[in-house]
């Protein structure tokens, strides 16, 4: 049976309640925007397949509830994530300050080599801005994380944010693959089973196959 994708990346969106995680995901998956705010309950996900350097990459993006009361549900999903988007609201100082807490959360719960990215959302609301772009960039430099300002409403940088993160994950993965498989004979075009980092047990099957 032909596989419908070459890679499957699990991404996670985290950040304070109301910063626009669902809107960003909605924009990315449906290319639409809904002004009304409906807070996410628990967790939800969307899937979108993108084309990256000729490879079909399936992105399973988990959208978490920002509200504190769902924290236990959402942290369970950190573990399996390969990329995490930290979202804050440029019109909300508090949400920006909380990014540090969210990073600590990641450090505690996610795998160490997870790719991260900081998104300053709602950059269309220039008049209400509380957090300057420079501060965002500074924070990103501090943690050595990529940073981009987005607007789900105006569809600004949402695509490129996901593409950048996906590309980084892919690069990291291919690098690891090459490192673990110096022969490099069978890189690329492989399914997730060739992804040994997440499934140590799959080494067995790989060995027997060879």
């Amino acid at each position: 049976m032909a596989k419908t994708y070459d890679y499957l990346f699990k991404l996670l969106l985290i950040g304070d309640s109301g910063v626009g995680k669902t809107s960003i995901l909605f924009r990315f998956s449906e290319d639409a925007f809904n002004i009304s705010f409906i807070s996410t309950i628990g967790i939800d996900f969307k899937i979108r397949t993108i084309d990256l350097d000729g490879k079909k990459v399936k992105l399973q993006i988990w959208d978490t509830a920002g509200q504190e009361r769902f924290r236990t549900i959402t942290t369970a999903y950190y573990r399996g994530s390969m990329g995490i988007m930290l979202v804050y609201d440029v019109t909300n100082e508090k949400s920006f300050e909380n990014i540090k807490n969210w990073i600590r959360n990641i450090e505690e719960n996610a795998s160490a080599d997870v790719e991260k990215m900081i998104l300053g959302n709602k950059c269309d609301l220039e008049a209400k801005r509380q957090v300057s772009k420079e501060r965002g960039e500074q924070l990103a430099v501090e943690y050595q994380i990529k940073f981009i300002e987005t607007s789900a409403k105006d569809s600004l940088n949402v695509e490129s944010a996901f593409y950048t993160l996906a590309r980084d994950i892919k690069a990291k993965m291919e690098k690891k693959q090459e490192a673990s498989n110096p022969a490099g004979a069978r890189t690329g075009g492989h399914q997730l089973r060739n992804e040994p980092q997440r499934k140590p047990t799959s080494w067995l099957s790989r060995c027997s196959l060879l």
Partner: protein
Amino acid sequence: MTNATIQEIEGIDDYWGPAFRSIYEGEGHEAFVQQLDERIKQHDKEIEKLCNFHYQGFIDSIRELLQVRSHAEELHAEISNVDANVKDTTDSLCAKAEELIRARRVELNIAATIEKMELCLPLLTTYSKLKSQVEAKRYYPALKTLEQLEHVLLPRVGPYKWCAQISTDIPRLRQAIQDASMADLRDFLENIRKLSPQVGAMALKQTQDMLGRSLASIVKNKKEGISARESTGPQCPHELVDFSPLHRCLHIHSVLGAKNDFIQYYRAQRKQQARLVLIPASVNLHDSIQGVKNYLNAVLGFFILEEHLLSAGAGLVSKDWLLDMWGMSVTKVASTLRTNTSLITDPTLMLSIKHQIVLFINTLKCYGLPTDPLPMLLQEMAEHYTEVLMQRWVVVFRDILDNASFVPIEVENQDQYDEVMDTFPYDGEELETQPFPRKFPFSSSVPAVYVQVKEFIYAWLKYSAGLGLCGARRAAAARQSASLLLSRSFTGCLSALFRRPLPLMQLVQIIVDTQYLEGATLCLYEFISNITGSELVTTQTAGSMFQAARDDAEQQICDKLEKKVDEFLDLENYDWLLVEPTGQASSFVTDMLSYLSGVLTSLEQLPERARVAAVRAATNRIATRLRNLLLDPAVKQISSGALDQLNLDVIQCEQFAAGEPVPGLKEGELLEHFASLRQLLDLITGWDWSSYLHDIGIDGGKYSLVTPRDAAMLLEKLKEAEQKSSVFSVLKKNERDRRKLLDTVLKQLKQLQNQDGS
């Protein structure tokens, strides 16, 4: 002797014969002659003596006579003189007398003329009166005068030329009067045409006043209105119209002997007018209430006037004729109103029109005109009104639902809390004690819809007001309309809502919301009973009013879950040639199961039924998809390692299913979805062909859900995979046996398959 004879002769005057005879015969003649001479001598002597004696006197007398002669002459002169004098004077007198005579004659003539003239005078005054009456358009008196003139005065006067002229004038005048009165009638007709709307309006107003009359208002009017009343104009609507031209005309025509013709003419004219009245002035009555008002006023005015004429009893209008006309008209009115109202989409306009019609009907009753088929029309309009209202409320509901977020209402303080509690009947005992912010179980669309339904009921009841229905019937009809509104319009809006994909949580909230709305219908009924003042009827339960909508929502929830399951299963990445299973479930399965259990816990607000349905749908989908994966024709080979991996994943799912993810399930119920997959996996992994082939065709067998076709298919795939892997290794004895068995089983299965197929 001789002496005696003389004496005798002397003594006797005549008859002397005998005396003469005696003398003649006797001898004494000489004696006698002697005596006679003697006697003569004596008489001579006496004559002489007498002459002597009277001589003097004689002389005197002559003298005197002479004197008289002079005197006479004197007198004669005098008399002539006098005569001349008299003659002079009498001449003027005579002239005067003649003048007098002429004057007298003139006088007599004058008197006669006056007498004649006096006879003519009444005729002439009458004639002039007639003229002035005609001029003043007082035709009836003019006619009377004419008659008097013709029959009394003219014959009395006589054959004058001018009389003849007058006589010839009379028919002409009569005709002129008739014509003029006809013109008056036309003016009158035109006039009442203009006035009849006012008449109608006044009658309607009076009816309204009368309907709105209560003891208090009468007393109030009495206090205020006595002075006002005196100054007011006509008390009765028909007083607005001056009927005198009509009555005059009628009189005139009856005098002229053309009463019947006149009545016929009048009725024909009015019939034509009625036709005009019945065609509304403005083409579209449904544009404004004024059009309807004008129309009804005109019609009503028309018939009030006719009715008045009927009761006035001049014979112009007969009861039959009026009823006939009315019967024709009322049907026309009803059909005109029907066509016009059927186009109206504005409830307020409908209400005003209904009000007008009710007033119209009441007024008709006052005037004793039959009202059919207008009540019928009102009934039809009521249905249309309900339709119009529903259409309007569909927009309202759609608006509410389109803008609804379907998140439970959260209130920060007591004011907000009270606001919700005021608009929606919710038993908030539990909530009352909780600290703020308090959270209602329903979303803001619930109170919004509830308020709107109330608004609808208000609006609906507005129509039924004044129709003379009793409270219980109104309430029943209102209940019916309200539940129709909810079950049809609102449910329709909900279904429209479900046409676009909604987030799961919103679907859940919608289901919860509909339950609260259903719960509130009893309060709506109470509300209806309160305003209609009727007994609360609770027999009609609205329990399943939104069941269809809920079913839709549940279906969508199921669809959504199935879609999510599909998305997970699309991530499936089995290596069908896997030699050794990983010992762990595939990550998409674990993700899926944890996601599902998360979602199912968040569905706890849902009614049990819905949650059970959702979890059933999800598990069934998982089972079906996994089974299809196994039997997918695109997968040509499946190694036993891959089969084990899949088996491991299925076991995970079965554990999930067995773990009773939601309450209310029958024990093992969810596992049944996996039953056929389980049997297939058990059969293949357990290599239990003998019992399979033995049990085949027996109900309740261990592998009763596995068809020979499926078994053969999977076996084929297994065979393919084994053949592939055996390229590298030399077949051992038991493997050879196994291969042989496999072929045999396959052959048998094919046979069974063919049997089934044939």
